[in-house]
């Protein structure tokens, strides 16, 4: 009987020991799990991507995202970009891995990236995720987006002063707005994006910049961001100033009926070179430069006393 009690007491101690052992294992696992997920980022599609440590090898498939990475001072982390990324000059030497919508999956995989930054509208993210590559989809379209995406990319790359970078950009835009003289504020502007003619309305990125500079856009927001407009509308609206990219500028002044438009008559036409046009059009960190270009155009070409214009 003494032996049985001693045996059961031994069993009891063993059970307790085993219990404590597994408890320690569990605690160790929990600790290691927390260490494995150092931080998480939720991208524009709502997918949450987790990182052990900030990625060192980055592939970017959208020019505005490329510029964002470089603006945050992390240009050297880029190992590959899409064929349309051309700013700053440093990225032009990087390997090109196809376009944003048609990336070269093999080339991307060969670069062994830690993360791929791409647009929401591309379908390639599923393919890349299936191959085990982390993908963060971000697509800035508005002024507010630029700030949001800048901060998010900063979060992904572990850059602590992303907010300061944004404040610099924002201040640049405000400075550009203040440099525009008050007498020019009532100028009515038409910004043509493409021969079609497609114009940039108030609800587009370009339109937001123009609004911030204090001028009026002949295309209202309810037409959508880039409406294909009847050229007669422009003649009727009689803008005081026309802004257009170099690629679509040819023949603009000879269009039927456009000779009577105030901007054409008084030669108030700002033609932006292709490289400059990118800064205006891309919703990215160069928006301050874009705002400055537009402000310069307004200072140079806008009428000091705007006319009453035509029917809007």
């Amino acid at each position, binding site marked *: 009987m003494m032996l049985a009690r001693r045996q059961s007491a031994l069993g009891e101690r063993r059970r307790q020991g085993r219990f404590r052992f597994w408890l320690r294992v569990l605690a160790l696992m929990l600790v290691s799990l927390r260490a494995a997920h150092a931080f998480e980022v939720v991208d524009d599609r709502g997918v949450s991507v987790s990182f052990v440590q900030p990625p060192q090898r980055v592939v970017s498939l959208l020019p505005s995202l490329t510029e964002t990475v470089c603006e945050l001072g992390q240009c050297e982390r880029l190992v590959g970009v899409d064929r349309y990324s051309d700013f700053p000059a440093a990225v032009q030497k990087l390997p090109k891995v196809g376009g944003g919508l048609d990336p070269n999956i093999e080339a991307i995989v060969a670069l062994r990236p830690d993360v791929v930054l791409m647009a929401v509208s591309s379908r390639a993210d599923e393919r890349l995720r299936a191959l085990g590559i982390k993908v963060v989809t971000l697509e800035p379209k508005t002024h507010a987006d630029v700030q949001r995406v800048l901060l998010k990319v900063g979060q992904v790359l572990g850059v602590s002063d992303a907010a300061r970078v944004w404040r610099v950009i924002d201040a640049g835009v405000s400075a550009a707005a203040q440099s525009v003289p008050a007498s020019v504020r009532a100028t009515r502007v038409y910004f043509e994006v493409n021969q079609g003619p497609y114009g940039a309305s108030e609800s587009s990125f370009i339109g937001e910049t123009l609004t911030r500079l204090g001028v009026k856009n002949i295309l209202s927001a309810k037409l*959508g961001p880039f409406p294909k407009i009847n050229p007669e509308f422009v003649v009727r609206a009689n803008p005081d100033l026309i802004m257009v990219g170099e690629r679509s500028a040819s023949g603009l002044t000879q269009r*039927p009926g456009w000779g009577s438009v105030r901007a054409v008559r008084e030669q108030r036409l700002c033609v932006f070179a292709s490289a400059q046009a990118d800064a205006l059009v891309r919703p990215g960190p160069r928006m301050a430069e874009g705002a400055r270009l537009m402000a310069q155009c307004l200072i140079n070409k806008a009428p000091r006393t705007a006319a009453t214009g035509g029917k809007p």
Partner: protein
Amino acid sequence: MTLRSLPLLIWSLLLGSLALLVLGVCVGSTGFENLIGPLLQPQADPAATVMAHQIVFDIRLPRTLGAWAAGALLGLAGAVAQGLFRNPLADPYLLGSASGASLGVALVLAVLGGGAGMLGDSMMNGGAAVGVFSGSVLVRLGLTGAAFVGAVLAVLLTLALSRGVQHTLRLLLAGVVVGVVLGAATQMVLLFSPDSLQAMQAFMLGSTVFVGWTACLLMVGVWAVCVLAGCLLGRVLDGLSLGEATAHSLGLPLGSLRIALVAVLALATGTAVAQTGLIAFVGLAAPHLVRSVIKTTHGHLMLLASLMGGALLMAADTLARWLIAPQELPVGVLTAVLGGGYLLWLMRRNSRSFTGGQA
């Protein structure tokens, strides 16, 4: 339908086109808007009259007339194509002429510059900038010439590949091949000259957006020449519709006359494509619409198909400008809806009336 309907049909098409012209002039960036009033009463409001005058005569009138002329050219080309190949599915773009014209325009734009390169002074001074929608006569002639040459060369290539027009299947296949190959060549040209890309995109969609008086009058002139040639050559197509051997036995010099018809096809298609881009379906639908109303010889058919195509494109263009003013729909969508819808209705009506008909 008896032959007596022929003058009736011509008159109704002409009057219909006139009505559409008036309607087209009244439709603009604010939707329907009657500007005829201010024009007819200049004293009432001089400012409005000046504005109305400018809008109607500089913008809407050349554009609407241009739409008619382009539609007439495409309708004529469609009738020629369907007669030449004895195939009701033929359209003016069949022999690769559309791809050839596009390639011609792309090459001119790439070589002379889609925006960066300009002839003469800067555009600020109205120099002859080479753009797809330029108004300068020389540039328009140059682009039209390039489109025409491109169309002719593509057609000749197709004929060479199919070794003559005898075998319809081989001809159609050769046309498809040439169309695809030249289309790819156009893409290559644009790849190496991205400045022309935007201009070409606008061109490929097809629209009458910037048709001014130069383009309009050029198209009307070419149409007059083509319709005259077409009516003279119409009897060749009539003879051919009875078979090659019969046509030969009737003493028709088939070889040279077929070449003349191909030239008419290329000229009409090239001219229309150079001014308004690629507008689909008009060339295919117009001859069918005419034939559903009247059975007649090819000479008359070509004239009628012209008038029908002109009316069709004018109607489509007016609607394209009207429906979501001040925005514009692509005119090709509306030609398909209008022409296709009417053809569908005709098919249903005819199939019902022929259920008890003779074999």
